């Protein structure tokens, strides 16, 4: 089985976000693998460990600064790492087109499975996985929290309001990983050292597709309300009751 995993590089969630003149100040960001992509990668590597003959290839759209997350993917257990150049300008549609081009070019036909994270923790759009699925012309399920692969039959679960949906799926298919799918392993020093010596292969991801949306007038957001502190629960209940909130 052939598995492709798409990996993004984002500021870690503890990073301080400053906006200067409408632009995010990224100078002090500590960049890491997108947390949702860690679930995607872990699931792919687990399938590889359970199914002999499976290969896992990691793809990341961006510049050479993405070497770190691709090396981490190798350390976790990916067999090969591909840097997809020329298409990451921050627009979901263009990134999906770029990843799609690279994936199509690398495999004769298509991989059996494509894994992505549910969304990137920086822009939170959750668009690339489903757009990529449409571009590759394969079945897709987003925000998967559980997966079973038995005798070539694929079953996945996702959360919906107040319940769980179970889907049957035929490969080739794309799945985006939600938190809860697994607990990603920690990489050990030996694997990290070995990954450092493995090559990162460059692929052409330049595309003719143009951005479809543009983000403007970025501003740091505060959500302040005026808090009235109360001494007793009785006072609070009386106020809420008077307001019609109970």
């Amino acid at each position, binding site marked *: 089985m052939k598995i492709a995993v798409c990996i993004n590089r984002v500021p870690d969630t503890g990073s301080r976000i400053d906006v200067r003149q409408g632009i995010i100040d990224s100078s002090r960001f500590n960049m890491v693998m997108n947390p949702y992509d860690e679930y995607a990668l872990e699931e792919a590597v687990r399938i590889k460990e359970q199914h002999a003959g499976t290969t896992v290839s990691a793809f990341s759209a961006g510049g050479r600064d993405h070497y770190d997350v691709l090396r981490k993917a190798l350390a976790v257990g990916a067999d090969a790492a591909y840097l997809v150049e020329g298409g990451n300008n921050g627009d979901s549609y263009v990134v999906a087109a770029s990843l799609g081009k690279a994936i199509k070019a690398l495999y004769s036909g298509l991989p059996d499975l494509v894994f992505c994270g549910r969304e990137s923790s920086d822009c939170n*759009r959750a668009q690339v996985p489903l757009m990529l699925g449409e571009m590759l012309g394969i079945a897709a399920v987003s925000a998967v929290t559980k997966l079973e692969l038995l005798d070539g039959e694929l079953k996945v679960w996702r959360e919906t309001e107040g319940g769980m949906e179970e889907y049957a799926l035929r490969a080739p*298919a794309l799945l985006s990983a939600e938190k809860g799918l697994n607990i990603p392993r920690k990489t050990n020093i030996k694997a990290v050292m070995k990954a450092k010596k493995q090559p990162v292969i460059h692929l052409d991801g330049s595309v003719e597709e143009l951005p479809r949306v543009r983000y403007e007038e970025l501003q740091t957001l505060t959500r302040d309300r005026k808090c009235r502190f109360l001494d007793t629960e009785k006072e609070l209940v009386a106020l809420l009751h008077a307001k019609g909130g109970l």
Partner: protein
Amino acid sequence: MGYFVILEQKGGVVKRASLDVWNRVQQFARTSGEKSIYGLIIGGEGVERSVADCGGDGCILVVVEPELEHYMPSAYTDIIAGHIRDCGSDHVFIANTAMGKDLAPRIAMRLGAGHVSDCMVEVGKDKVPGASTTVYSGKVSALVKVLTRKAVYSLGPIADRPSVPSGDGVEVKMVESKVLQPSAWNPYLKEIVYLKGRKDITEADIVVAGGRGVGGAEHFALLESLADALGGTVGASRSAVDEGWRPHSDQIGQTGRSVAPKLYIACGISGAAQHLAGIVAAETIVAINRDSEAPIFKAADYGIVGDVQEVVPRLEHAVREIVRVK
């Protein structure tokens, strides 16, 4: 031009989040003078009756198909994209629910449309919606300019829920589902299991949520009991979910789900930006926290400084007294 609303039903009833979207789009049309308003709903027998709740103007297309009572990604995409094309609508709106999040990017791709996820929209006189959203886990706001003629907007909940519009009345039109080949549907939804008991956090009017300050899974019983007294439901912060005290489906915040209750009671939740991003649409926010400096108080309307395990039972007692008087 033209507005198109993708409606979602559960058990033959239009979802509250979808009704909100429909009502907002009616308001957009009032402001901009747009005359072309379409809605579409897919469901089993009798779903046509459920759209009686949709007021205002325009036409709602109804696809009745027992096989499509529940969300079937590829079939829904084919059917909905087809009808949007037939109606000639440029601006498509959908509620940012589990289905909406999954469906909107697919529809955008089929239409060659720009897609703005999890956004708010306002409409001026020029009929073109202006969208805004948040990025970096709710820490940064941004305006989103769509560069294509067509656009798909998935709308998050807002605090100021739109009222039911009056109008000439909505025309309900039964339409054919056109493409129906269940064997070709991939993925195929086999089953939905709904959790028993309380209302879902996204649909409840009152949400009692707990964080690390609750102190352990067993102490969530206090919150459950308070929620019972209030007729509400229980949610959790990311910390409480990460601790394994509550399931992921209860998680409120940017990495979980956004809620829009009338009353939100945050118990032992410190108030990280990611969490606050999920509760902006709450009408009234009450914070209970041991630390008077916790950021949650800055985002709250009312606050009580104290230990959750002491305050919550007293609060429940006070609530039950009022309920008894009522």
